[in-house]
């Protein structure tokens, strides 16, 4: 394996300001002026091949004591090489310009940077030179500040909206949020006003939430799509930077709210990486079991909503898939008392051990699910109408998918056998025998097949994990991180003190930065944390799969019919909580 640091140092001796390897991740600090050249070198050199820009974000180092240089903002680029098994390389780029930072746009190298850079512009005010369409993305267009800057306090800002409830006309009504004096917006610049331009969403049954697509139609044919997101933006990252590490676990549930366990996992693993600890084997196995159950549950929701999108409300499969998902949620309720927002995983382990009744019930479900999946496939796979609606729709090639940073079933449906569980195993996935389902067509039908096969693979993993469930602690045996057992509190003064310290102060990871990505049900879910040595994360960044995958909507749906747009949104499998955060 080529060492990227050495390769870049030898090719660009002047560009590298510093380099380090922190927790196995090579980190390169580059001059902003050399970013594009180094990026091209990293992407195009065959031995390096960093073709996937996993994440792009910015850190405001205004209050970071460990900052080694004078620039206030630093761009953070997480690069992966799909061909080399998802090897991670972090680029840190101090941005010139002081309080009005400027960075070169990398959209020419990795098109996926488009929305990431818009987000960084929106939340940090970084101006990306060469970006094709630098607008706000999550916050409203007339928002006065860049909220993730460290000099912006959490809460307390004036919300630049005026409710019109005072108007007499609305006195007798409930809470009207829409403004009465709204006028139609101008037509987006690149669209032709002679065509029919329709708002699809935010209140639309097929957009899976408050997604808004501005669709340009010629008859039934889609000419252009401009997604408008941010309706559900709730500032999770800002929130995460203002609370203690362990308290953010509960927030992660609310991002991709149909796969809460996996969100917990991504965050906990990032914190554990920062702390340099590892959860005990039993906790790892439990994590694998619940996360794979969650993957099945999430795919079932996808299947149900996808058949709903394609087939209409009458289709019975909708309820069948939800029936099975309910059984999985029952299992979650057994382990942690919650069904949807589970918050079951904790830093260093899980919050409760599995109850005794869990395993038999799980085995019972494992025995039944394959038959149910067969039933679904009998209903759909051969159906000419289903095939007619899905085949050839929303095509994406492997090269396009990688360039746009698309991961998960979308990438595997395009023929790339890339799965972080195999490529960069975590939680002991390397012990389990499973395969990565791949289809080469890259259309919606391929993605349907991939997801169906993935559910079966998840069953295999769960089966193996249950069969070889190790005994031992379910939470790390470190009183600085995991609270002592309840019984100990009555006997041991020391345990009581640990408990008190943990819940009043939390734990303090050493200064450093860590990015950890996991294979969530929708793609790579990554969490990037910067620690300044305090009990709060200095920077908390979440890379969500839905946000990145949603970018390819136009690429996939352009030229198809209006009905196919619904199929495309369904096949991307977005959750708006995951998109907007």
């Amino acid at each position, binding site marked *: 394996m080529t060492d990227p640091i050495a390769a870049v140092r030898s090719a660009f001796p002047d560009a590298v300001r510093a380099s380090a390897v922190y927790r196995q991740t090579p980190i390169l600090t580059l001059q902003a002026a050399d970013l594009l050249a180094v990026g091209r070198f990293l992407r195009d050199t065959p031995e390096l091949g960093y073709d996937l820009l996993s994440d792009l974000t910015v850190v405001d180092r205004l209050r970071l004591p460990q900052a080694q240089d004078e620039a206030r903002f630093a761009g953070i680029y997480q690069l992966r090489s799909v061909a080399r098994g998802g090897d991670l390389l972090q680029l840190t780029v101090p941005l010139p310009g002081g309080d009005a930072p400027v960075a070169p746009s990398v959209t020419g190298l990795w098109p996926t940077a488009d929305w990431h850079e818009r987000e960084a512009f929106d939340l940090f005010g970084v101006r990306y030179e060469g970006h094709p369409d630098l607008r706000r993305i999550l916050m409203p267009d007339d928002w006065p500040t860049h909220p993730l800057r460290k000099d912006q306090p959490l809460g307390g800002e004036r919300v630049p909206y005026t409710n019109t409830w005072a108007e007499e006309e609305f006195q007798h*009504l409930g809470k009207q949020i829409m403004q*009465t004096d709204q006028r*139609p*917006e101008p037509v987006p610049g690149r669209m032709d006003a*002679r065509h029919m331009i329709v*708002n*699809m969403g935010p*209140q*639309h049954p097929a957009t899976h939430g408050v997604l808004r697509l501005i669709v340009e139609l010629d008859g039934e044919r889609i000419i252009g799509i401009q997604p408008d997101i941010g309706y559900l933006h709730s500032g999770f990252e800002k929130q995460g930077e203002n609370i203690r590490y362990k308290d953010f676990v509960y927030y992660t549930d609310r991002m991709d709210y149909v796969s809460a366990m996996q969100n917990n996992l991504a965050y906990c693993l990032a914190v554990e990486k920062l702390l340099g600890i590892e959860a005990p084997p039993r906790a790892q196995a439990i994590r694998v079991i619940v996360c794979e159950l969650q993957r099945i549950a999430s795919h079932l929701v996808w299947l149900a909503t996808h058949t709903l999108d394609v087939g209409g409300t009458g289709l019975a499969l909708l309820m069948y898939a939800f029936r099975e998902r309910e059984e999985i949620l029952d299992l979650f309720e057994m382990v942690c008392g919650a069904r949807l927002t589970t918050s079951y995983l904790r830093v260093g382990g899980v919050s409760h051990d599995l109850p005794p009744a869990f395993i038999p019930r799980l085995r019972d479900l494992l025995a039944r699910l394959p038959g149910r999946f067969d039933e679904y496939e009998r209903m759909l796979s051969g159906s000419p109408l289903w095939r007619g609606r899905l085949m050839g729709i929303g095509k994406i090639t492997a090269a396009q998918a990688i360039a746009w940073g698309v991961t998960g079933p979308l990438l595997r449906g395009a023929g790339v056998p890339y799965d972080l569980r195999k490529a960069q195993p975590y939680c002991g996935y390397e012990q389990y025998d499973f395969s990565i389902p791949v289809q080469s067509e890259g259309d919606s039908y391929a993605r349907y097949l991939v997801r169906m096969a993935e559910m079966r693979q998840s069953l295999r993993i769960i089966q193996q994990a249950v069969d070889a469930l190790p005994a031992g602690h379910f939470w790390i045996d470190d009183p600085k991180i995991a609270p002592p057992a309840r019984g100990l509190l009555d006997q041991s003064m020391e345990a009581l003190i640990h408990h008190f310290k943990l819940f009043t102060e939390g734990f303090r990871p050493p200064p450093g930065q860590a990015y950890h990505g996991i294979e969530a049900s929708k793609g790579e879910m990554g969490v990037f944390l910067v620690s300044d040595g305090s009990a709060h994360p200095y920077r908390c960044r979440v890379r969500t799969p839905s946000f990145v995958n949603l970018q390819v909507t136009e690429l996939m749906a352009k030229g198809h019919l209006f009905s196919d747009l619904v199929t495309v949104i369904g096949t991307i499998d977005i959750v708006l909580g995951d998109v907007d955060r």
Partner: protein
Amino acid sequence: MTSADYLPILILILIAAPFAGIAILLPSVLGPKNPNRMKQEAIESGMIPFADARRRFPVQYYMVAVLFIIFDIEVIFLFPWAVSLNQLKIFGLIEMGVFLGILLIGYLYVWKKGAFEWE
């Protein structure tokens, strides 16, 4: 069979129409009335529409209508022929064969021209 046979249908229409009319008028008497601007906006996923919806239709819809007119008239000619086939016998069969044959050529032409593709 006289036009008197159609009288019951006229009566049915005369009864059905007021029923529909009353049903439409009823809520304006019985229902609450709280109009406001938001309620009277066009429903377009919660946004104000960009423009008026009435505009030039794409030509594809028109194509379907033209095709329909061509071929549906053929069907109208089939009805009286179908009723009296017993009298017409082989002669009727040949006549209709010629008629359908001509239309079939047109049908195949239209198919070849791609009028049935949604483009």
